[in-house]
């Protein structure tokens, strides 16, 4: 398809601007002005509409295709959430920061406060900050809170390490690094969880925090989690919960009850807000009371009259991790989702997410290697090692699925599973959809044996076939020249 810039005709416009009702101001000095106009598109409104509508049709999406992308919780995004967020579009964030401004923003501040309370109940935490803008941003905020906690106790120099299992998301060590920590990685044991003995050896008084995803990225709940947090606490290390997999356990277990001190939740995963082709997400962070003094500012608090106020006088705060109050529009959607589903609804979400993952796991087990064969939570991880014997890789199976109209599962993650295929169906998919997907996965396994070339050639039905990624990295053409 042509780029929008390749469809430009000089002088053409996509929108008419308001006419001016004030005098023309004197020109700025030449030295402050750009020499030429920015080379933006010059197209009519219809050109624009056709271009982006046709571009959109070159995407798979949850609304058009089953999207069993492990670790990403690609559930259906209820339409009323979009309508709900739009209600808040006109409110300027600075209003709340003006003298007398909080009184004008009781609705928006109230929603953030309520959302914090609901998330605190779901996760077993004492207070939630809604400032972090995505999951990784929440991780960074959370580890900074832990660093501030240790510093307040005179242990800044002593605490040097963050411990993560080797199955962790890459964001965990990357976020800990921004908070100034070095990383200790603990291998996974044959039983699918972080190796308990090696973990014990790794733990010293120099460890600041242990970051865990539970259920982990293999989709397994770690039955030793309480023991692990007890060991961490005995070394004055805090427990960080990566909430990426929270969809599996709502109402079943609360991270705060099993020893976690800090948690982030991904509203765009568990709480039904759309992924937007890569964002915006939202990553509120919940903490136990000992960490409240370090939360980012401004902190939303309720005064004795039930009015919401912004507290900015906290001396221990880590400061600010974003300019305003977080991704408010995303939080409005998540809030609507939580109040709509309610207690029973959220329990049912987790139950059916787990049921669906186990169903797919059982049905595909005869055809694909299942390195950790046990009851899983909301996702299951296969390996294409049987298919590899025929020269077929996980990526080939992924591309075959695209031809059949399925977005592929996550492949090659977690890194500890060779040729990993990570499937997360989510609770919103029907049995019929999963059955049809299972049949295509079985067909892929059969093709791998009988006709591996067909898998290597896939996809054939898309606007493009497999791309030359080496060329992209070598030439680094990241914008249209001209």
């Amino acid at each position, binding site marked *: 398809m042509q780029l929008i810039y390749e469809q430009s005709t000089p002088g053409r416009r996509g929108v008419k601007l*308001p006419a001016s009702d004030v005098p023309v101001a004197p020109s700025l000095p030449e030295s402050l002005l*750009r020499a030429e106009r920015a080379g933006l598109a010059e197209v009519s409104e219809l050109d624009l509409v056709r271009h982006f509508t046709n571009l959109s049709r070159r995407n798979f999406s949850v609304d058009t295709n089953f999207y069993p992308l492990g670790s990403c919780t690609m559930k259906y995004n209820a339409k009323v959430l979009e309508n709900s967020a739009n*209600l*808040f579009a006109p409110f300027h964030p600075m209003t709340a920061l003006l003298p007398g401004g909080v009184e004008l923003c009781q609705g928006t501040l109230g929603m953030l406060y309520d959302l914090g309370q609901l998330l605190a109940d779901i996760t077993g935490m004492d207070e939630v900050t809604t400032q972090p803008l995505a999951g990784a941003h929440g991780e960074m905020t959370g580890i*900074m809170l832990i660093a501030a906690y240790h510093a307040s106790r005179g242990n800044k120099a002593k605490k040097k390490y963050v411990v993560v299992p080797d199955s962790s998301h890459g964001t965990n060590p990357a976020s800990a690094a921004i908070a100034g920590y070095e990383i200790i990685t603990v291998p996974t044991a044959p039983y699918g969880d972080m190796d308990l003995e090696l973990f014990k050896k790794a733990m010293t008084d120099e460890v600041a925090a242990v970051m865990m995803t539970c259920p982990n990225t293999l989709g397994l709940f770690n039955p030793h989690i309480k023991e692990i947090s007890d060991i961490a606490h005995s070394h004055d290390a805090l427990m960080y919960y990566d909430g990426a997999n929270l969809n599996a356990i709502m109402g079943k277990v609360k991270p705060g009850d099993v020893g976690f001190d800090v948690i982030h939740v991904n509203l765009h995963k568990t709480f039904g807000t759309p992924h937007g082709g890569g964002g915006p997400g939202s990553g509120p962070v919940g903490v136990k009371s000992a960490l409240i003094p370090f939360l980012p500012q401004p902190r939303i608090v309720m005064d004795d009259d039930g009015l919401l106020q912004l507290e900015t006088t906290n001396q221990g705060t880590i400061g600010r991790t974003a300019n305003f109050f977080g991704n408010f529009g995303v939080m409005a959607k998540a809030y609507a989702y939580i109040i709509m589903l309610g207690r029973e609804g959220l329990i049912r979400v987790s139950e059916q997410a787990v049921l669906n993952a186990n169903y797919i796991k059982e049905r595909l087990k005869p055809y694909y290697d299942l390195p950790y064969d046990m009851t899983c939570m909301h996702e299951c991880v296969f390996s294409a090692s049987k298919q590899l014997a025929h020269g077929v890789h996980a990526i080939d199976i992924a591309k075959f699925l695209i031809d059949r109209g399925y977005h592929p599962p996550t492949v090659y993650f977690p890194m500890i599973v060779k040729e990993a295929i990570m499937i997360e169906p989510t609770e919103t998919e029907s049995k019929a959809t999963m059955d049809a997907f299972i049949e295509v996965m079985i067909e892929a396994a059969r093709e791998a044996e009988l006709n591996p070339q067909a898998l290597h050639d896939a996809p054939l039905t898309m606007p493009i076939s497999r791309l030359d990624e080496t060329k992209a990295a070598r030439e680094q053409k990241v914008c249209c020249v001209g």
Partner: protein
Amino acid sequence: MNDSHYCPHTPEEIAEMLSTIGVASVEELFAPIPTELRAKTFNLPAGMSEFETYGRMQELAGDNTPGMVNFIGGGFYDHIIPAVVDHLSGRAEFYTAYTPYQPECSQGTLQALFEYQTAICRLTGLDVSNASLYDGGTACAEAAMMALRVTGRNKILIDGSVSPFSRQVVKTYLFNLDVEIVEIDPLDGLLNRAELASLLDDSVAALLVQNPNFFGSIEDFTAVAGQVHGVGALLIGSVYPIALGILKTPGETGIDIAVGDGQSLGNPLSFGGPSFGFIAAKKTFIRNMPGRIVGETVDKNGTRGYVLTLQAREQHIKRHKATSNICSNQGLCALRGLIFLSAVGKEGLAELARLNRDKAEYAKARLAAIPGVTVLQVAPTFNEFTVSLPKDAAEVVAELLKAGIAAGVPLGQYYLGSENCLVVTVTEKRSKKEIDKFAEALQSELIAIHF
């Protein structure tokens, strides 16, 4: 309550699935969670219908005071949003897709992001852009960390006329990294160049400036870029994309890394988010860029296509050695930015920028005519300017809020000794009538003091 609209299984289907799995109940699937760890309480309220949910959301929105006439900016700006932006970014094929890791079925998102990167490069006059960051403040922090990596040094200088919010975000990000941060107090609302000269040496990684700055002043940093480069440091410029319709580009100025908040490009105020951060840089720094980057390539038939590239910089490959921890970005907001820029277009953006300046200059003259009100700037301004009032600006703002006018951002809470100063923002959306009404209200408020 029946939740089958989001959890579709019938009891028969559940029974069938349980039998395939070989367990008697759904509860059995939770057996790996030890009983003693199970949640003892779960106190959420009962669920409600879609209709009731929307009603509750309307109630909450109604608890905010509607219809404020905004003369406030401070990083978020009340600009027009063409109808096409909502309609096209509202295509579910865009907003319910994930990160385009599988390029064959994600060409829509990938090509749009390539076009977005192109728009940012052309707007800033720089060579490379990524596919978006979180917001303007975090983009400043990412740029600072990028400069630390590029130079191998550990000192960042920040002009005190950069947004106090962005400065605070940078400080929070760098707090644990053994980085020295030196803030340069502004002089007459501009960068204090004499102090800068005294601070520049070969320990400095970068200087962060903003244009127009928090007070609204426009500065030409071309000479500063030369000075900064003279000691081997980088110049980071936080810029306002609407102003770039007419203002000298970061590329022309000699800025190495340009960042900013993309809210003004087609994203609603939405109480502060979501918006997006943008970052653009000279080509030599591409391997130190944070976040996702889309690159052009071809498929095996030679057909042009787009793919996430240089991923070896990113956290999912490099883990703790990554150039940033960012994973999810603000892709859909960046798409809105692209659609906005493509609708407004080449001439339109310049026209929009001039319209903002015309409105602000009218307001400036109108306010300056009020006895006791002085415009503080000697420097030219874009759509924001700072006035000094004969009394505490916070009190004046609080009074005018009652009349439905958000008069501006009082500076006192951000700059000691500036209690009487007010930063006023005037976008193209403010009519002459609204500006006149504001001026009249301010005048009566100030007269009221004298009596």
